């Protein structure tokens, strides 16, 4: 991993069109500003991992559980 030290307001250029700037430092929090082309998705890492994990869990559904859920849903909607 490349390690660079930056101060407040200093930036890092990645390739031709990605720029990351240190906007604020408060205690153990760092606020970053990111400029990147629109086709590049930017996410907090833990959020991205949570979505990945949820998708993996969602892909595990079975036909039987789906049938049970459908029955429950019908009953529930009638209330």
């Amino acid at each position, binding site marked *: 991993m490349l390690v660079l030290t930056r101060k407040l307001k200093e930036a890092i250029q990645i390739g031709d069109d990605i720029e990351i700037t240190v906007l604020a430092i408060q205690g153990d929090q760092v606020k970053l500003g990111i400029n990147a082309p629109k086709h590049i998705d930017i996410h907090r890492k833990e959020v*991205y991992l949570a979505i990945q994990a949820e998708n993996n869990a969602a892909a595990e559904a079975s036909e039987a559980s789906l049938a049970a859920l*459908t029955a429950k849903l019908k009953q529930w909607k009638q209330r």
Partner: protein
Amino acid sequence: MNIDTKYHGTVAVKEEDIICFPHGLPGFADEKRFVLLPLADTPFVILQSVKTPALGFVLIEPFSYFPAYEFELDEAMVEQLDIETERDVAVYVILTVADPFDNTTANLQAPVVINARKRIGKQVILTNTAYKTKHRLFPEKAAT
């Protein structure tokens, strides 16, 4: 062409029914082609992978189950999905069907947004939102 599916057996699909997910979905980056197959007698629509028969996500239209659900697509998403008008946009959320099924949840933090006219899809991860990956489909007290 015929494809094998998770819930529908072998299904004939037309090339124009295939929805392209240019970046796949998080965790499924290589899955770029899907079809939407409604599951008969249910409110569910299956997002079925064209190349992987065992991969089918269970989707619902969120607004009848979560009436207050709303989000804004940012400019980058509108561009990626090549959206010209709101009318072309279909929104679904992925269900995680649990056992027991009372605990089934919907992922409101990352809706599946589809440009139905251009047949481009993307699972959009909402930023700075209060929505989470798990919202119960059935309120806790209704569970019996």
